[in-house]
């Protein structure tokens, strides 16, 4: 057992070097300490004034998601991978084009595990560097990741082109059919619109 009383006993002080040595050590250690604090006084503060400046965020930080919507093929892999089922998505397919209705992440549940990003075949869902999630209402924590709803402009163009192509094909087919039907039409002009109707169903 340690005898604490010994620390302050006069003879222990005497052993340390005597009275004048104590006086000198008291002064000297204070000066050394003051030198150290002075060194820190002139160092730059490490404080980051948060709203105005921010800490550098590492590249692999797992923050709020962002979605490259053009790439997404609505395959549900991310929603399936999510351990807490926080991803909800809804879209309508028009052939290859997608008409988006919703793609939301519920940050009440999301734990930023990044498991949603790995199975994505198109590498289109990512976790970004944004971390501030403070809201006044929990409802606001359900984030919609869509940058647009419905069809994208490109998809609209492509769809329109496809329509046009289809229409052109149909027109060509109809023309072909009409050309084939011409001799018959000469014989039976009343049946020509009926031939046009017959050509349309296979095209659609």
């Amino acid at each position, binding site marked *: 057992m340690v005898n604490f009383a010994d620390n*302050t006993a006069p003879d222990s002080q005497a052993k340390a070097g005597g009275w004048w040595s*104590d006086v000198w050590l008291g002064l000297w250690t204070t000066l050394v300490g003051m*030198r150290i604090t002075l060194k820190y*006084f002139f160092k730059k*503060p490490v404080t980051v004034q948060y709203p105005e400046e921010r800490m550098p965020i590492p590249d692999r930080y797992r923050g709020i998601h962002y979605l490259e919507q053009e790439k997404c093929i609505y395959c549900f892999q991310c929603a399936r991978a999510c351990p807490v089922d926080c991803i909800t998505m809804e879209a309508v397919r028009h052939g290859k084009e997608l008409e988006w209705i919703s793609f939301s992440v519920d940050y009440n549940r999301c734990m930023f595990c990044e498991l949603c990003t790995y199975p994505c075949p198109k590498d289109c869902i990512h976790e970004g560097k944004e971390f501030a999630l403070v809201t006044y209402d929990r409802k606001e924590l359900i984030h919609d990741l869509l940058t647009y709803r419905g069809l994208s402009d490109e998809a609209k163009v492509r769809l329109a082109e496809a329509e046009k192509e289809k229409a052109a094909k149909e027109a060509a087919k109809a023309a072909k059919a009409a050309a084939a039907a011409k001799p018959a039409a000469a014989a039976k002009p009343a049946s020509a619109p009926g031939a046009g109707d017959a050509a349309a169903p296979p095209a659609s």
Partner: protein
Amino acid sequence: MSASLALSLWLQSARLQQQTGAALGSTTAPDSNWTLDLLEWVRTSWLSTKLAGLAGMDQAPALPTWAAAAIGAGIAVGIVIGFVSVVAMFSIWLERRVAGRIQSRIGPNRVGPFGLLQSLADGVKLLLKEDIIPSGADRKLFVLAPALVMASALAMFAAVPMADGAGFTDINLGVLFIVGISALATIGVIMAGWSSNNKWALYGAMREAAQVVSYEVPLGISLLVPVIVGGTLELGAASRLQSGWGGSCWFLFQNPFVLPAFVLYFIAALAENKRAPFDLPESESELVAGFHTEYSGIRFSFFFLEEYAAMFLMSAVGTALFLGGWNFPGIDLLKGGWLIAAQLAVFVVKSMFLVLLMIWIRWTLPRMRVDQVMVMGYKYLTPLSLICVVGASVWEVWAAVPFHERPIWMQLFTPVLVFGVCAVLGAMLRKQAIESAAQPTTRSRIAPRAHAAAH
């Protein structure tokens, strides 16, 4: 309330000055004591003529002395309260900024430029807070304690000469007055601790009492050294004695024993003001907040302001008696109002430098134990201050003539000694810094890989 207490103390000090001046046949009484001018001005000013006009008299009768004294003292106390508050608030700001920088932080920087108005904002907040008096408290003492503490801080200003002829009253027993009044704050602290009906508050008050009783001794004795050197207890006269050499002939450079006495005075002043490493009366790790545990709002702010005002005042006394008061190289070249302004600035800057030193020490040293504080006071400071007194007396008796009539080697001996000591200590600190930087023994420098390999 504290204002009225300060007022009465101020009046007492004025009376003391008159009495002692008359008794000693004082010839050093300054001819430009502006408090007496103020009194005279109040007596004959437009206020009295206005009052006379209201009363329907053509000729304004001079105000009775007591009324003039009351009005004049009211104005003077108003000035003092304003000055003390501004100085204390600036010191609080300085403390928080310096603490921040020493801890690699920034400190308050939002309210006003560099956060200078932070103390004002805090003061307004404290004013608006609920004023709680515990149900078990001794109400009268509880209310009186912060007022008494504040009054002692304000009253100490009465005898501090900020510039030649601009002090309130240059009492010719100024040192005695200041030592006495500074101990008055302790009574307030003990009252606060006792009346709070709280064990921690009482512990804090008891510690304060023990500490002040112990450290008054070295404080007073080390103050005797400049008194011996100057041969006066009057702070203004002492400051005047320190001019020469272009204004740099401070007591610190007049006698080799003044430097150790100054160090001793500074340490004792730290203990008197309950500053770290002697902040046992309010040590928050043991006593919650010590004697002001139960105080809140404006009463707490009184204690808070008093701490910083007392720091400034102790520094001011140190400045006046050790560091040459308002004297500074080259200040003699100025004239009239500029001289007064420059003297005021020099005095305040010197005092603020000592306050900065107190803050610096606070954020350097850890708090001492109660027994260590007692050991330091009685076994180290008191004998050392006695040695200084004896040494200074021997030196003065040996020199036998006033400072400026001594041989030149004697005049230059102390400055050379002081600068030599500073240079040697600086060189030693530099050497120690280099050595400690070269030593890779601190725990934080263990290589993480080696640490991992050990497991």
